């Protein structure tokens, strides 16, 4: 009997979808799109992570530790002593910098090949396989590139090309290619002597890589001079990994939202399927099919649908990830470090996980529908209204669940600590809780609207909105809330996400704009090209400031020095400013920090950036410990905390005087020029540019405005991927609404036929559908606004703060709200076009016979 039952059910399912191919297609497409978005982001971030791990492997190899120095690097003499006094033969000297080839950035790694064997055996093996040791070491121009990079750039072995290093062009020759690995794709290897000359390192190294066991570690720690720091390899890599973690988490959360909306879609379809087949279920029940069998059959069906959609989606996701990876890489390069990701790295397991995630997300929402189907009493004439009744009965439960979710969200927010995951969990709880309330809230809104319309029959608006049809449209939605409710919720969440992200990005952008204005106080900036290594950025020629001072259009010049230093909490950027003949004003403190920069100006205290303060719970008046050139570890009083959107890894601001007491470093990285009041900055830039060219300086010269524009351009690039994901998410919701309208249309064919038989015109029928769609769109948009604002607030005050440690001033402008309305209305109307046209074609007598 069992087998027979199953066969019946399966056949019935297949027949149903044959009769409703568009429904099947829409559901699959919607879920597939949701899964595709989630898959693409999961695979993209996995690829970026893997590429990062590979490039770390290429950079650090098997090194367990690094020896780093102060602002001037590590004296090469220490390398000799490490080997001759301590016998640490698993050590390799490294000089590291930045090089540009065409428009691409590369990490230039100066190595001693014979020291590489124990640390980066891949490199060593490449030399062996190519017999290239002699040319690599002997040739003053020799470099090595990853084979695929060389092929991509069209450079063959022995060919000469130009590298831009510290603003200077160097002719180099490709001596050998390294076997391709993603890790080495953005590397240029050269003999350490070449790197030393090109990067002007004098007799210093950037670091010494070491492979140490515990015994040697102890030996080294006992020997280590104060001027040197011993850092575990993992800490550097971990810090870099941490930087992008927040970025990746944000993307992943965004993509899961799309999946959630995709799940709404499955729920919608399964409810429709169940409603449409209630008569069948009733029949089966009277023929002896058990409830459990029906329950199982609906779930299996949902699972099969979800699996199919997920497989399609996960395949689409791979293609989409190929597109997203470039955007993610761009952002990582803009904000963090050189990373080349040209291919996707993911395991079959990760892909399978995405399929499973999609299948689960698609199957779980179908439980309710399956339950409904199973509860069908035997032989009962199926009426949609019974379902509507059960839907109403369930509302109470849903309301409780919704309130529970919202409370859970609040509780999660109140959790002590500032980690990102509870933040996102709270955000999802709020979204889900709100979404569960959407059908009820819509009911209330519709009731109110209907009341208003009925009351207003005696006056104006009635004529305006089209009489009975409008009221009828409202009534139709109300009666079909089980169908529309979910579509409404999905659309609402999608629009709210758009509004929330819009408000967040807008607020963020204007905060950055204000910050740039506050930070960039000079009119013109000259800076040395920055370098990648864990030490000082490029230097400017000191004689330049002499010339600038003699220039009569310049009121004041200030200089700044940026270096990377070690704090007890990890690496931080130190910026030392010499304010010239001005007083050092420092940066604008955050709202709750002491607004007094006297101690800073008097070189007695330092300012720290907000991300640094947040990640390490530092406050004004406390002290921060930094590793100095002259005095080893030193404590500095924190005057206050300033806003910094420039870097999430933290910055400490020093007065140059204080800096020079503790660091042996006379160089500076950039100069800011304040012009006299009537000077034209464009003219001055040209004059200075000419002087720089005459003197053969390859410095970067920018006026205030172009820096601001470039910064905002980077900002916009960073959020490009967000916009893409957002639109795709709306796309999923659109499919949901489309499918809901179609299913209602299919269900109500007979009802519509009756209307037609009663004299309603074809155009009136389609207007009815359009009106319903318009009302749904408006309601979704209206309900999305508060959720959008709440989402924006959560993104700004919870997610951003926890991800990056930035304070953003929330600003709600009208445009995202209007855009939300337009989006809701537009999506709804667009989704209704096809159903409306279809309605026009209804054959009255055929339809009235019922299916």
């Amino acid at each position, binding site marked *: 009997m069992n087998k027979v039952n199953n066969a019946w059910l399966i056949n019935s399912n297949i027949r149903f979808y044959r009769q409703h191919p568009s429904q099947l297609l829409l559901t699959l497409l919607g879920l597939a799109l949701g899964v595709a978005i989630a898959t693409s982001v999961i695979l993209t971030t996995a690829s970026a992570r893997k590429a990062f791990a590979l490039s770390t492997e290429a950079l650090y190899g098997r090194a367990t530790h690094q020896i780093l120095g102060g602002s001037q690097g590590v004296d*090469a*003499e220490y*390398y*000799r002593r490490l*080997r*001759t*006094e*301590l*016998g640490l*033969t698993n050590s390799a*000297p490294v000089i590291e910098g930045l090089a540009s080839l065409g428009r691409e950035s590369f990490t230039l790694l100066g190595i*001693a*090949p*014979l*020291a590489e*064997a*124990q640390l980066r*055996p891949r490199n*060593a*093996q490449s*030399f*062996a*396989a190519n*017999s290239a*040791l*002699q040319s690599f*070491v*002997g040739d*003053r121009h020799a470099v090595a590139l990853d084979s695929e990079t060389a092929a991509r750039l069209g450079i063959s072995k022995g060919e000469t090309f130009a590298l831009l290093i510290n603003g200077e062009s160097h002719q180099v020759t490709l001596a050998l290619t390294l076997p391709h690995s993603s890790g080495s794709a953005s590397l240029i290897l050269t*003999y*350490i*002597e070449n790197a*030393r000359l090109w990067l002007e390192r004098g*007799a210093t190294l950037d670091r010494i890589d070491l492979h140490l066991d515990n015994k040697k570690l102890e030996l080294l720690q006992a020997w280590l001079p104060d001027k040197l720091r011993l850092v575990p390899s993992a800490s550097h890599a971990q810090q870099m990994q941490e930087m992008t973690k927040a970025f990746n988490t944000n993307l992943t959360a965004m993509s899961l939202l799309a999946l959630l909306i995709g799940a709404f879609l499955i729920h919608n379809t399964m409810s429709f399927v169940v409603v449409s087949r209630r008569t069948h279920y009733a029949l089966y029940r009277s023929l002896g099919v058990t409830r459990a069998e029906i329950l199982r059959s609906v779930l299996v069906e949902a699972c099969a649908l979800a699996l199919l959609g997920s497989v399609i989606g996960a395949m689409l996701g791979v293609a989409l990830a190929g597109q997203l990876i470039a955007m993610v890489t761009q952002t990582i390069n803009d904000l963090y470090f050189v990373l080349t990701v040209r291919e996707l790295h993911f395991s079959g397991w990760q892909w399978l996980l995405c399929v499973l995630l999609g299948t689960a997300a698609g199957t779980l929402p179908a439980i309710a529908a399956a339950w409904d189907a199973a509860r069908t009493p035997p032989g009962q004439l199926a009426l949609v209204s019974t379902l509507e009744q059960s839907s109403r009965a369930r509302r109470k439960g849903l309301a409780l669940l919704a309130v529970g979710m919202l409370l859970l969200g609040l509780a999660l927010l109140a959790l002590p600590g500032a980690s990102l995951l509870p933040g996102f969990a709270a955000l999802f709880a709020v979204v889900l809780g709100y979404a569960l309330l959407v059908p009820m809230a819509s009911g209330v809104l519709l009731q109110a609207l209907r009341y208003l319309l009925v009351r207003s029959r005696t006056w104006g608006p009635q004529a305006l909105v089209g009489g009975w049809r409008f009221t009828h449209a409202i009534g139709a939605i109300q009666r079909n809330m089980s169908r529309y409710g979910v579509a409404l919720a999905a659309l609402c969440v999608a629009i709210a996400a758009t509004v929330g992200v819009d408000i967040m990005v807008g607020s963020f952008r204007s905060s950055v704009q204000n910050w740039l204005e506050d930070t960039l106080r000079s009119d013109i900036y000259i800076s040395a090209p920055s370098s990648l290594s864990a030490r000082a950025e490029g230097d400017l020629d000191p004689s330049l400031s002499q010339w600038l001072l003699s220039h009569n259009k310049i009121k004041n010049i200030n200089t700044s020095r940026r270096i990377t230093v070690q704090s007890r909490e990890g690496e931080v950027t130190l910026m030392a400013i010499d304010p010239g003949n001005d007083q050092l004003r420092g940066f604008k403190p955050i709202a709750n920090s002491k607004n007094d920069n006297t101690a800073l100006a008097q070189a007695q205290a330092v300012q720290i950036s907000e991300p640094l303060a947040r990640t390490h719970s530092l406050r004004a008046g406390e002290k921060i410990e930094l590793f100095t050139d002259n005095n080893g570890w030193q404590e500095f009083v924190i005057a206050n905390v300033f806003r910094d959107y420039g870097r999430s890894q933290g910055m400490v601001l020093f007065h140059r005087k204080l800096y020079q007491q503790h660091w042996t470093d006379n160089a500076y990285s950039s100069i800011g020029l304040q012009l006299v009041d009537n000077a034209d900055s464009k003219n001055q830039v040209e004059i200075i540019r000419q002087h720089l060219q005459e003197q053969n300086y390859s410095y970067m010269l920018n006026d205030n405005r172009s820096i601001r524009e470039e910064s905002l351009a980077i900002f916009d690039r960073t959020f490009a991927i967000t916009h893409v994901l957002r639109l795709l998410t709306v796309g999923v919701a659109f499919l949901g609404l489309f499918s809901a309208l179609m299913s209602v249309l299919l269900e109500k064919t007979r009802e519509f036929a009756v209307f037609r038989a009663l004299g309603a015109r074809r155009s009136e029928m389609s207007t009815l559908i359009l009106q319903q769609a318009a009302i749904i769109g408006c309601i979704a948009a209206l309900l999305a606004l508060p959720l959008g604002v709440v989402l924006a607030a959560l993104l700004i005050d919870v997610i951003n703060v926890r991800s990056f440690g930035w304070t953003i001033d929330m600003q709600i402008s009208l445009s995202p709200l209007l855009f939300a309305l337009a989006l809701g209305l537009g999506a709804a109307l667009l989704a209704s076009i096809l159903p409306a046209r279809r309605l026009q074609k209804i054959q009255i007598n055929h339809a009235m016979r019922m299916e």
Partner: protein
Amino acid sequence: MRFIHALFCTGLLTGPVISQAEQTSIDIGTALAGSAVGFEQALQLRAFEFPSDHGPHPSFRNEWWYLTGQLQDGSGRDYGFQYTLFRIGLTPPQSTDEDLWSRDTIWMAHVALSDVKEKKHWHSQRLSHGGVGSAGVTASPFSAWMDNWRLNATGDSGNFPWELHIADENFNLRLQVDNQKPPVLQGDRGLSQKGGAGNASFYYSYTEMQVAGTLDGKTVNGSAWLDREWSTSVLPPGVTGWDWFSLQLQDGRQLMLYQLRSEKNNAANNKSGSLVQTDGSSITLAADDISLQATRHWRSPISGARYPTAWKLKVKGLVEELTVTASFDEQELIGIVNYWEGVIEVESPNNTIRGRGYLEMTGYDRGSE
């Protein structure tokens, strides 16, 4: 006449080989097969000057400092030791060179210790560019070092006594090294001809040196042999390997012998040597004066090479035939090139001649590839 020739004999350049710890070696051999252009060659006799000739001769492409010896601790336990530093010129040195990290030279060092009683043999290999003074050789004061392995004069010049300090993972050896006899100029007054024109080296040896010091804190005493050789191109084509003996006889004489084996049936076609008398004078031995015959073989489980570890040798000037036997078989060095170098014992049939020494054998792992 030592191991480094193996590197030039391209047939022996087997590419990256597994070093004692892991597969990390670099194909230095191929790098060495570079050009001899611009380097001096050992073409004619030269006047040797000591101690300055202990220092480097960078106008020649290759050079080595090779110290081997036998030690005995207080309980009479026997050891053998080896410290070798090779200088390999990539390009002739340029006078304008102000490089911090050398471009023209690479250095390679080998150390080994044989524990005869336990039949244990430890060895390590190191390679370096010698940048910033992590490896190199200076003449005055004399010092030949690689990281924390060092052979250096104790005074300000290159004169003896010297000191050897090897701080290795496996052992710590500190020895005072003093000569007992003047240097022996090998071949024709120090010009050692191995093949046709230009295939020669400058070669001198200290055949009897006294050593005393500590091995892992234990007092040890013994004798050592220092070989110094520099050249640009040495071996005639077709040479596949060689067997080299340094024997210190109890009667106060020392014997150096080598034979070059060629591709044709692995036959020895080039033999030479010297017999150093008790007064320090020496007799050069020609090919006809030497007869060498392998009597027992040992196959290395690591490289698969089959080394003759027992020999019969007959030399003009010594009445009796000598038997040379490895103190134990397992004294193979695994590195860029695999070779056997270890302590040997020498005796005549009726024990009138006894002694100890070192044997080096290269080119035996070719057939097993």
